């Protein structure tokens, strides 16, 4: 298995791990959002959806374990890359100017990533690990978003997620070697649309719950 360590341990190998785990999270976000859509159909639909998920039992525990492993790989590899990239230029430039390649997303990847990590820990504590014996999951959602500070934190987090995904999506394809003149424009467009959907779609939920529902 030495070959696997050699292949994954290099700069390109680490980027491969970032790309595969990142794309997995894009898939997770899609499923998560599809589930959240039941919120718009009211309290019973959402509680029913959550109840259905929990009835899967050990399958859900397994899925959680996979997600946690993917997160560990993504965060630890990302931090390693961040540290290595900082140390690759010990003396910085006095004048910094972009040649036009960088985007807001690409420049801030490590920072938006760390903020998202903090948000995810907060989100899991807030919703997943909350006491569910005296309240339904819908109660937790509506009680949380009755507080303006929660609404603000969640909306900001979704803007950050959109920025992170705006670079991450096409970047993952480039890292996997999928850069083709016929498909790259499409991949980039899908990335932009997907990041907008993440920001606007998830970001609308706290607004909807606090103001409309």
């Amino acid at each position, binding site marked *: 298995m030495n070959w696997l360590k050699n292949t994954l341990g290099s700069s390109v190998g680490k980027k491969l791990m970032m790309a595969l785990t990142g794309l997995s999270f894009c898939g997770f976000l899609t499923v998560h959002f599809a589930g959240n859509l039941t919120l718009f159909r009211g309290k019973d639909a959402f509680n029913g959806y959550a109840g259905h998920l929990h009835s899967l039992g050990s399958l859900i525990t397994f899925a959680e374990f996979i997600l946690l492993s993917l997160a560990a790989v993504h965060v630890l590899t990302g931090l390693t890359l961040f540290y290595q990239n900082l140390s*690759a230029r010990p003396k910085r430039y006095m004048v910094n100017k972009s040649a036009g390649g960088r985007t807001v997303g690409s420049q801030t990847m490590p920072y938006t990533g760390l903020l998202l990590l903090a948000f995810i820990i907060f989100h899991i504590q807030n919703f997943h690990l909350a006491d569910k014996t005296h309240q339904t999951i819908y109660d937790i959602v509506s009680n949380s978003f009755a507080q303006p500070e929660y609404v603000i934190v969640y909306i900001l987090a979704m803007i950050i997620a959109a920025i992170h995904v705006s670079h991450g999506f096409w970047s993952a394809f480039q890292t996997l070697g*999928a850069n083709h003149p016929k498909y790259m424009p499409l991949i980039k467009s899908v990335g932009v649309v997907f990041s907008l959907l993440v920001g606007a779609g998830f970001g609308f939920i706290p607004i909807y719950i606090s103001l409309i529902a």
Partner: protein
Amino acid sequence: MTKTINITLKVWRQFGPDVKGRLETYQAKNISTDMSFLEMLDVINEQLTLEGKDPIAFDHDCREGICGMCGSVVNGRAHGPEKGTTLCQLHMRHFSDGDTVVIEPWRSRAFKIIKDLVVDRSAFDQIIQAGGYVSVNAGGAPDGNAVPISQENAEKAMDAAACIGCGACVASCPNASAMLFVSAKVSQLALLPQGKPEAAERALAMVRKMDDLGFGNCTNETECEADCPKEISIVNIARLNREYLKAGFLSSVI
């Protein structure tokens, strides 16, 4: 009539690899806008020499934009503000009277500063030595056109081979990554039949050498492509990724 301008230069001066450097200010007076950037530095150096001061050390050779020797970071941009231009081909007409121009060396852990604006780019040579070649046994030369190569691949290989190894990609990369250079060198060989037999060894060896030398990791910022004087495309980086992953997972090379 020739137009002349006066500009203020702030140049990185550092007397040796391990001493502290700093920006020194010089006034460049009556600079003809027909001069190249390096000719402007020649004028400054003549002045400094006449004053008995140490002239600014900078790399240069052909001054025709093809050798890859010159290059400094000018106002935060590798090879200055013009697209697809080496520093020697950058002309003073792109600057205005009264401009302040900051000149710094390539900055990367893998490129040690030798003096002032001169950096040691032998790290690139080491990457080439690791795999940037084809092994051809001596013998009779094959007939012309005996090995068919599509026009498309010939063009792609030529585009990659346009890399002059100046190091601007490393200098402009926010992570000081050498991926554009390595990808151009891997691509020009991987695209042609002569490079195919050693493709797997080459991709693995060159990436590993690049990592060992302390270059950063590519995060697809695409600054390299924007600053490359030969406009090498990041499509080559995707090809290097493919070649590397193919070699790592599918070849028998360890």
